[in-house]
């Protein structure tokens, strides 16, 4: 299940819903990304995310399908906020369920690397010094590369 939504959501609700879908799994890994209250030493008042539908949703769906091909997953969930959000609010929730834990950990990790560097979103932070568009960090691109190396070896 994939959702790109412009309203706040609660991580605890997302995981409760996912648990119901994941019946029979032995292992559930979740990642939750939250708006950080500070960035580069400045207070963040608002984080804003843009998407480009349906390219954004299609891209996430492809990534979920790649994850399902690579790992034996019993359920996968990606929920991503767009629009304006405040510090502490959830930006993204990824959940992966499997019979054993390694597949669930790796699939959640893989999907986050996709979302950080390839998913069709643009984000800006509003701080006292102004509006700053944020691009992926070098570490984010390095993290993504791990999956290509793993494939090649």
């Amino acid at each position, binding site marked *: 299940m994939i959702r790109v939504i412009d309203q706040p959501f609660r991580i605890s609700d997302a995981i409760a819903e996912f648990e119901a879908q994941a019946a029979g799994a032995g292992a559930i890994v979740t990642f939750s*990304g939250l708006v950080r209250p500070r960035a580069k030493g400045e207070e963040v008042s608002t984080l804003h*995310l*843009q*998407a*480009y539908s*349906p*390219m954004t949703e299609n891209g996430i769906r492809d990534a979920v399908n790649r994850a399902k091909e690579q790992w034996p997953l019993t359920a996968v969930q990606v929920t*991503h906020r767009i629009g304006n959000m405040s510090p502490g609010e959830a*930006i*993204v929730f990824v959940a992966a369920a499997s019979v054993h834990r390694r597949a669930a950990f790796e699939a959640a990790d893989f999907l*986050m690397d996709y*979302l*950080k*560097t*390839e*998913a*069709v*979103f*643009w*984000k*800006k932070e509003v701080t006292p010094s102004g*509006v700053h*568009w*944020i*691009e*992926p960090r070098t570490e*984010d691109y390095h993290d993504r590369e791990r999956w290509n190396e793993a494939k090649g070896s």
Partner: protein
Amino acid sequence: MARILYFGKLSSIFGEMSETADLPASISDTAALRTWIDQTRGFDGVLLHPSVRIAVNNEIVPDPSPVSDTDEIAFMPPVGGG
């Protein structure tokens, strides 16, 4: 009339997320469009950077790809969510 979309920092530079535009007859591919929009909308070279990708009708295409006056054309700087 083509519909032109500006995402991320490009929307801040242009001041809007989109516009509709009559493409001049001389603009028939993405490379030509990139240069024309960059010059006429005050992007001052930003659109010429290879990290800015172009999507035609929701599909990312390499330069030069055909564009016509009925397309939705998006200028996309580096992406990333999460």
